[in-house]
């Protein structure tokens, strides 16, 4: 079975600091995609970053970057220069084999403090 585990239910960080959110997954697939989604209080799901498993280079989107360790099945999200607007639930998600069937972790609630 494919699973996604986020071991940090809640985290907090000071504004302008850096924070890393953890995610591990389990799969027997060789070709898959990994994602981080942000869900602010409005509850909309917003794609933050996407990583293709066959790419060794870690994905980066402005202040957001990932540390993808395929052998360890680890996919952490680093947020640099944290901003108050980064306060949200962050979900790690995985697709392997099935078109669009995202498997989500339970989420990490991130609070950015002024």
């Amino acid at each position, binding site marked *: 079975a494919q699973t996604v585990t986020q071991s940090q239910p809640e985290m907090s960080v000071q504004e302008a600091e850096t924070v890393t959110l953890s995610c591990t997954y389990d799969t027997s697939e060789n070709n898959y995609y990994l994602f981080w989604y942000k869900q602010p209080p409005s509850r909309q*799901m917003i*794609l933050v970053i996407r990583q293709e498993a066959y790419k060794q280079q870690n994905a980066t989107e402005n202040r957001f970057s990932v540390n993808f360790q395929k052998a360890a099945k680890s996919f952490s999200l680093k947020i640099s220069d944290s901003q108050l607007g980064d306060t949200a639930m962050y979900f790690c998600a995985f697709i392997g084999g099935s*078109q*669009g*069937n995202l498997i*989500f972790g*339970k989420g990490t609630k991130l609070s950015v403090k002024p």
Partner: protein
Amino acid sequence: EPEVTQTPSHQVTQMGQEVILRCVPISNHLYFYWYRQILGQKVEFLVSFYNNEISEKSEIFDDQFSVERPDGSNFTLKIRSTKLEDSAMYFCARDSSGANVLTFGAGSRLTVL
């Protein structure tokens, strides 16, 4: 790209009633999805819809659920006889490229009393 629009944003219904949730993606998109998030829990896949047919569904998507695209534009999720445990946020998503880049709508919050 334009966002996915979902209606209603919030619906309250009595147990046993039928509910239809609507999603308006761009008409030339091929892949559509419904997801569900019970309050405080993780987001769960319900069903994927490709080329006007269901391509995959989860075990949650039982006989009380159905999806269709009646007019080639709106994409609907129907719950025939709602139960208390159907109370959740329902998200529609589209993938315009088939590359597993899903764009979600703002969600429809369903409350079953």
